[in-house]
């Protein structure tokens, strides 16, 4: 298990399958990426591409019948020890969750327990991992509320989640996640459920907290606009597989997989999409649809929808290969795109 000194998380050819009685849903089937210390890696892909299953695999929170079939999830903890989380027991995960790796979720409205005050819930996180008195935990919770810039933090400490707006609750979730200064924060579409102005505020807050706390962020989203705002590196997923990884500037400048190209063309862009008369043009959308993950073709899963497809694409799954200066791609014609 070797890991570059500046890499905190390295997922290698991860396969997480849901085995049913008659079929196997290969929700994650060949995911590979590296996350650098203190950086933000965005994972993008359409709904159902396996982004959440990837993050739950890392946290050890898969629900049955989901299980890791093969692959490695190498994680470097604060003592610089490297663990393979793909082989972790639930007991080992318990010591890690919250303390080394924390997570925030898509639904701020339902992710907090409605029966406890936000102060209790943040304090609980600290008390779980540090020997601390209740009054101390409360003080630390208040501090965290201030860190996430909740106005009148002292007055909100004893609020119940239902007394807060979605944006405030997501701030509380962030406060809770960062309460034990984890080295990795997994954010699964943390802004998708919020309206655009709140979304921008939360992204801004995450960026500032990253400077302050120094954590690495695995940021899951299906919105390339958000990627441009927050990420250093990008991983693109399609039907449970990574099809491209690249630094964010490189990716926006030149895509090395036809799917990424299609995704970018689907993203609204204020200047590009306005026609000469200032009217919005019809947004491009990729023809066809994602193949069912229970029945993937043996070759490239994007081939049926791909404008670059050649017969060779159908024979075998293309490997991830170096395609640009710092990018890798799962396309046999990546150099021609």
């Amino acid at each position, binding site marked *: 298990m070797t890991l570059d000194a500046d890499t905190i998380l390295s997922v290698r050819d991860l396969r997480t399958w849901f085995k049913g009685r008659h079929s196997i849903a290969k929700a994650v089937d060949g995911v590979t990426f590296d996350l650098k210390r203190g950086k933000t890696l965005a994972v993008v892909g359409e709904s159902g591409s396996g982004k959440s299953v990837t993050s739950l695999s890392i946290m050890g929170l898969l629900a049955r019948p989901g299980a890791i079939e093969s692959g490695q999830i190498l994680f470097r903890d604060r003592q610089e020890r490297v663990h393979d989380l793909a082989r972790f027991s639930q007991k080992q995960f318990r010591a890690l969750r919250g303390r080394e790796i924390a997570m925030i979720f898509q639904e701020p409205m339902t992710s907090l327990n*409605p029966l406890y005050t936000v102060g209790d819930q943040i304090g609980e996180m600290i008390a779980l991992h540090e020997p601390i008195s209740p009054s101390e935990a409360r003080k630390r919770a208040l501090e965290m509320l201030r860190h996430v810039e909740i106005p009148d933090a002292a007055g909100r400490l004893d609020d119940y989640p239902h007394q807060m707006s979605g944006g405030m609750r997501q701030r509380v979730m962030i406060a809770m996640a960062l309460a034990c200064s984890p080295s990795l924060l997994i954010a699964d579409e943390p802004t998708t459920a919020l309206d655009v102005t709140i979304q921008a505020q939360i992204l801004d807050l995450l960026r500032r907290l990253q400077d302050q706390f120094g954590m690495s962020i695995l940021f899951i989203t299906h919105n390339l606009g958000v990627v441009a705002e927050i990420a250093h590196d990008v991983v693109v997923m399609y039907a449970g597989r990574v099809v491209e990884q690249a630094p964010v500037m490189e990716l926006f400048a030149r895509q090395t997989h036809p799917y990424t190209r299609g995704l970018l063309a689907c993203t609204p862009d204020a200047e590009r999409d306005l026609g000469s008369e200032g009217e919005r043009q019809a947004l491009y959308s990729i023809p066809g649809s994602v193949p069912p993950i229970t029945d993937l073709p043996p070759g490239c899963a994007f081939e049926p929808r791909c404008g670059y497809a050649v017969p060779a694409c159908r024979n075998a799954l293309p490997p991830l290969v170096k395609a640009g200066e710092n990018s890798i791609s799962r396309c046999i014609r990546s150099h021609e795109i």
Partner: protein
Amino acid sequence: MLRSALNRLIGMAIVMFLVVTIVFVIVRVTPGDPAAVMLGPDATAEDIASLRERLGLNAPIPVQFLTYFGGILRGDFGQSIFLNIPVTHALWLRAEPTFFLTVFALAIAAAVALPVGVLSAYWRGSAFDQAATMLAMFAASIPSFWLGLIFMQIFAVQLGWFDTSGYGGPGASFAERMHHLVLPAVTLGLISSALITRFTRAAMLDVLNDDYVRTARSKGMSEWRVVVRHAFKNALIPILTVIGLTAALLISGAIVTETVFGLPGVGSLIVSAVLRRDYPVIQGALLVVAGLYVLVNFVIDMLYLLVDPRVRY
């Protein structure tokens, strides 16, 4: 919090007023002369006339109602025709076995049903879950008198651990009296646990998939803490409702069980009052049972307020 408690108290008073009215009306609309019905076919005209006089049945209906209602407000439920003592006194003499029987039965039902329901949901589909589901269906479908007789046969007749029936002699100590309640309470409790088990399982299955349970797990706490502190407390909200319902059902379940085990409780008082057409006792018992129903509901509502902050505001 105080405001909603007050609102509910007012609601309770209204319900009780309606109950008193209905009980009053039911007796008046029973076909035939209540006095004649009470005294049976062999009564003479003079007997009936004197009973009508004693019951105040000759006064106009509104006056009768006011008299009756005023009596209840003063705690006067009338006089038992057969026992020749005030109804309240008759009820009070029989209250102890019924009270402890229902309390013990409810405690047993909850103590069995809550853990079994929670574990069934947590290990859904497992052998434990399937066994618990089958047992709960079995318990829900057997009549309580039958289970009571079986227990009596095994634990009282064959093993000799308990007396087959009764509540001890006239001078029996408190411990002896409670010893007589063990079999009836277990019988009633086990049968009532079926419904609570099913509800607990369903409520837990619901909340175990909730987002905040996943959040709790992501914080790195033990499964025990996730299940009890985060999931179960949320499931408790629907479970409380069904415990309240069970408590209400227990009151009628106690009547049958008391009869089977020969306990001198309110249940057997009601049964004998019905057989003897002792209307004042039946009316009084109806009011007490209805009052207990309302009280149980009130307690459940107050527990809601305690558990769920969303109801509080």
